[in-house]
């Protein structure tokens, strides 16, 4: 009952698949920490497969900022579609800011002279 449960198996495989994508920094629990699956031993964060077969699967990710998000979302949806025919609610919960681009204002402060 535990390991062979289809929803749980799908959740595991979704988590593996999604976090393997190069643009995905990590999975995230979503806005209210609601996107998660409890499996024996741990809590699988970022994937939720509702019991109702018609309800959409929920996936929440943190993406990198080096590519436009819609592009990445399209790729993720295409990848997920190979695993399940169910609709997918995809949440971009956060982005990882590239550290080198967040600082230029600080260095430019010195250069603008009187």
């Amino acid at each position, binding site marked *: 009952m535990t390991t062979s449960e289809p929803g749980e198996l799908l959740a595991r495989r979704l988590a593996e698949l999604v976090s393997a994508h190069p643009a995905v920094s990590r999975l995230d629990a979503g806005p209210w920490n609601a996107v998660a699956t409890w499996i024996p031993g741990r809590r699988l964060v970022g994937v939720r497969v509702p019991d109702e077969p018609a309800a959409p699967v929920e996936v929440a990710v943190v993406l990198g900022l080096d590519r436009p998000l819609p592009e990445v979302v399209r790729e993720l949806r295409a990848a997920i579609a190979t695993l399940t025919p169910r609709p997918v609610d*995809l949440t*971009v919960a956060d982005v990882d800011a590239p550290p080198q681009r967040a600082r*230029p*204002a600080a260095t430019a402060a010195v250069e*603008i002279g009187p």
Partner: protein
Amino acid sequence: MTSSTPSPTIPAASTATTAAAGGVAGSPGRLAEDTAQGRTTIAASVVQKIAGIAAREISGVHSMGGGVSRAFGAIRERIPGGGAGASNIAGVQVEVGEKQAAVDLDIVVEYGASIVDLARAVRRNVITAVERMTGLEVIEVNIAVNDIHLPDDDDDVDAPAVPATPAPSRVE
């Protein structure tokens, strides 16, 4: 209906697609391809970060945030875990809808930069970045210039405040 769970009361799901169309039909304004395959949600903090980074990329922007939010930002950066990226979102407020976003910025400019030109450059860069990165249409970017940073006051001594000249009101 728009936020989290579509109604689980869909009996006798014949195929996944028809059930999905029924499941999210209540949320207005979804993109057409989203209704069949599920929703895509971009969190407000994502838009906030992108807008903050884009604004800082303009070199006449010294820092962001009003006095209060700058103070909170400095505190937040010292809280472990709570402050990751807090410097990116100081001075940025956003409203994110299904397809559109509005951005409000509080910035501190460098002395010597033309504030009107600077505001225009900031606005253009923020719109480009947010629209390109998120696919959301940016309907407005309101910029409030809270302060001006003089080259000689290194330790953030308050310079004479400049009224928020280039900030367009919503009822222009």
